[in-house]
């Protein structure tokens, strides 16, 4: 399959086939990280810019490692060091980076749609590393890659996503990706954290954790952001753990082999107990490892993107 997309903005717009191409590309890149010399020359001579308007350690480092294993040069632009604080707009910043002859911009921004807006205004490749509550496609790709590795398939799996669905880009990208690949998705949260008409995304809504876990092959536990400055009602931390926290007892009741995932960083004792986070059902560290392969795949594919018109002519 020829890859046509210059940007990766979200999983909503991707076809099942495109997601499968990314996954199989990622699978083949996994081996690179196990070599003694963890490097391939695929992006040699290319410049990748990490443009992060929100604090992030994991995603930024993961992209940086992925780009470096592809032999790209990586520049990190954090919110504190850039001229953003002087009022420069995202578009201006993007164009400036483009003028520096960078090849790929990886952008993290607090506004939904920011990556799409940037992509519209620059001709370099844009990869969305999380935009507001909208999408975080590479996180979902690494989640799906991990699931596939563990179970051998995605089609027919039942995945329960627990937590603050309304404010979660991880949830949205996972929902699009999993449903396109034929998995059954349940979202589980108190009503106040379920966004309007989410069932139209093809998911089942459950309000109790027991309903969420029963029959699930995997549970993806979202980080609860209690520091979020929202005027809307929000559950108390302890109350949340009591009602929705993933504990060993709850898992045992549901299914012995259930896979436990978390995008990190974990609030231990809030979303899940330490015992579960470090327990044998947890694949949290494997997710981190797979993040590199998934991001290498995305970086590689967008950098190879073909222009549709060129091919036709």
């Amino acid at each position, binding site marked *: 399959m020829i890859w046509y997309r210059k940007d990766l903005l979200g999983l909503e717009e991707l076809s099942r086939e495109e997601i499968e191409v990314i996954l199989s590309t990622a699978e083949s890149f996994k081996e690179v990280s196990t070599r003694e010399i963890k490097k391939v020359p695929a992006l040699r001579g290319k410049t990748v810019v990490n443009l992060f308007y929100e604090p992030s350690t994991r995603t930024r480092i993961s992209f940086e490692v992925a780009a470096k294993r592809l032999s790209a040069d990586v520049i990190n632009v954090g919110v504190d060091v850039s001229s953003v604080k002087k009022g420069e707009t995202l578009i201006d910043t993007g164009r400036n980076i483009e003028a520096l002859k960078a090849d790929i911009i990886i952008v993290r921004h607090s506004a*939904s749609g920011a990556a799409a*807006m940037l992509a519209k205004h620059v001709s370099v490749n844009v990869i969305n590393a999380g935009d*507001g509550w909208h999408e975080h496609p590479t996180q979902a790709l690494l989640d799906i890659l991990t699931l596939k590795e563990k179970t051998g398939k995605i089609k027919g799996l039942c995945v329960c996503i627990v937590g603050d669905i309304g404010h979660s880009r991880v949830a949205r990208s996972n929902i699009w990706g999993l449903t396109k690949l034929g998995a059954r998705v349940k979202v589980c949260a108190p009503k106040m954290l379920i966004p309007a008409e989410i069932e139209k995304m093809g998911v089942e809504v459950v309000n109790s954790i027991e309903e969420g876990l029963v029959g699930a092959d995997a549970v993806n536990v979202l980080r609860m952001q209690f520091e979020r400055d929202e005027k809307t009602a929000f559950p108390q931390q302890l109350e949340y753990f009591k009602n929705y926290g993933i504990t060993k007892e709850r898992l045992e009741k549901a299914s012995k082999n259930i896979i436990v995932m978390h995008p990190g960083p974990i609030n231990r004792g809030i979303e899940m107990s330490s015992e579960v986070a470090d327990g044998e059902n947890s694949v949290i560290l494997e997710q981190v490892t797979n993040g590199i392969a998934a991001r290498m795949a995305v970086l590689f594919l967008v950098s190879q993107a073909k222009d549709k018109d060129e091919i036709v002519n």
Partner: protein
Amino acid sequence: MKLLIKGARVIDPVNGKDEILDVLIDAGKILKVDKKIQAQAEEVIDAQGKIVMPGLVDMHVHLREPGREDKETIVSGTKAAAKGGVTSLLAMPNTNPAIDSPERVIGLKKIIKQDSRVNVFIAGAITTGRLGRELTDIAALKKEGTLAITDDGSSVDDEEVMRKAFRIGAKEGLLVICHCEDKSLSKEGVVNLGFTSTRMGLRGISKESEYLRVARDLRLAAQEEARIHIAHVSCRESVELIAEAKKKGVKVSAETAPHYFSLSEEAVLGFDTNMKMNPPLRGKSDLASIAQALKDGVIDVISSDHAPHTESEKDIEFERAEFGVIGLETELSVGITYLVDTGILSWSRLIECMSSFPARILGINKGALTPGQDADIIIVSPEKGWVAERKDFISKSKNSPFTGRKLKGVVEATILKGQVIYKR
């Protein structure tokens, strides 16, 4: 000077005309509308195959002057109006400063007299600074010639303030135009609440935030026997409330904007900020309700809610971009394309909604081709297709949701008081 327009299909709903006729204009007034007029005229326009109708009356336009001349001015806005076939418009008072005192009205009238290319009428503010607290001197505003009062852009939250405004409006015989939005519900929302807001990861604006305020204003209007006009209706529930109130005899008229019957919330999915307006684009069933309400006469008026914004206010993150779209130069074509061409409205009905009814609601002697009236007339090629392009907009701002869309119907000429002020 005499001007004769020959052989056009003349549609003049007020006088019950829809046939091939000639129109004779003399000294800026309509002299005669009849078959094959034999008269000596200095200028003769052959309008065969064209439609001739009264110029549009757009009762919802933000001209931005004074204060935001970078977005629009009286000159640029009224030039855009002429191109769009709008010969009369009502300027909204949410300028900077707001039109909230007789002095401000006088100041604005001076600019209009000097700069305007079409008839510009003035709406005054309901409250000082449009802050929703203290009523303006409504009687004095009326005396200076404002045709309505409105805090458009904001709703008056305080029920007692709004009640008093309705009471004084009723006493003065002044129309109150209602921007219906309960901000405690719409809050920081930017798109229609539901699947769209969920998918995009944006805060939603519920329909309740609109129709609960419509319900309140209808109740107050009934109690105070005020004459009110509900601006920019976007959803089915508001339509139902207005229909019910009209049945009960409440003196209410209602308006929608072209985007509410032509574009659904799906148009927003690409984060195009030119699809961001308030109220937001709603669902497909709302679209159908709005069109049906125009047909049924529940909604009386199509006005543009022309809301120009600069590029730097629009070409930014979706949630930070300003609300509002321009519409003067596309409204007639959008009406033709989405209402007449689809068979929902007759030509005559469309002209009522865009000319005769708003004229009647504002109490101005426009919107008809009656002999003796000012000759404010437009000539339209009804079948001609075109694509709205950014570079072609005359408005200072380019924030149109119709850019790149195929539209039908082109204004060939706009005549104001017998003078051709725009020719394609």
